[in-house]
């Protein structure tokens, strides 16, 4: 319960943050995240390196991601358990939003 309340403090995530966390369910380096986000969003969302660099630093400070490896000057990041909770809380919220939207739209028809 307290963990869920804690996770909700970070919501709603911005589109950028949401996709970065989604990409980091598996460990990836920066460019890997950029590619994965493009793929996951069907080409709709692109994240520039300046935006990503800043996001990494913020998400690390919030302990939502952590550095798992560093080699060849590339840092590899992955979600922390807290990051995973925040991501799950956001997905549940999206689901509620989508359900509410579908219901209203269907009732109109």
């Amino acid at each position: 319960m307290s963990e869920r309340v804690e996770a909700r403090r970070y919501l709603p995530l911005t589109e950028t943050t949401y996709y970065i966390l989604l990409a980091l369910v598996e460990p990836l380096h920066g460019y890997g995240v950029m590619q994965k986000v493009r793929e996951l969003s069907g080409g709709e969302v692109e994240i520039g390196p300046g935006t990503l660099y800043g996001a990494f630093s913020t998400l690390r400070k919030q302990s939502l991601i952590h550095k798992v490896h560093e080699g060849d000057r590339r840092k590899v990041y992955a979600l922390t358990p807290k990051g995973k909770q925040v991501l799950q809380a956001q997905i549940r919220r999206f689901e509620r939003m989508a359900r509410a939207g579908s219901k209203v739209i269907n009732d109109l028809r």
Partner: protein
Amino acid sequence: MTFGDGGKGEGKMGRDTLTKFKFFGVWQDRQEEAWLREMGKQGWHLSSLFPLVYTFTRGEPRDDVYRLDFIASGKDSESYLRLFRDAGWEHLGSLTGWQYFRKPYEAGEAAEIYTDAESKIQKYRRVRMRLAAVMPVLIVTVANPAFGRFSSIRVFVAAVLLLLVYSLVRVSLRIRQLKRL
């Protein structure tokens, strides 16, 4: 504003470099990027950086996108540069915290280093913090009674201080504009 052109060989063949003196305020980074891109389309590619002095090398006309980033310190710059290079950006150099990047334009690609309003705001906040950090030294110098009332040092520092205050206002307005997006 352009102070003047230097070194352009009028009608002469074989001139390979061009030096231009140009001033861009810290709030004019997008204008600077657009200007560098125009130069590239005319076959002049930025090759070295110095305050107010841009040196270009002649080559094939290309549509290259230029982007300027601002980072507060050099810490962690290895992984910073690696990330940009992996994403296809060539790092041309840095000038007082400003990082110059270049990438050939490809149709259908965003070619942006900042892709949301929040991170653009963060960039201008870093610029603003740097400006604010330099200010006390200038104020102390202007207020220093050891310098004569209209001594050239004092007048010069006062002019720099005015430019700094103006820059702070312009950068703050840019942040406010981005917040409305």
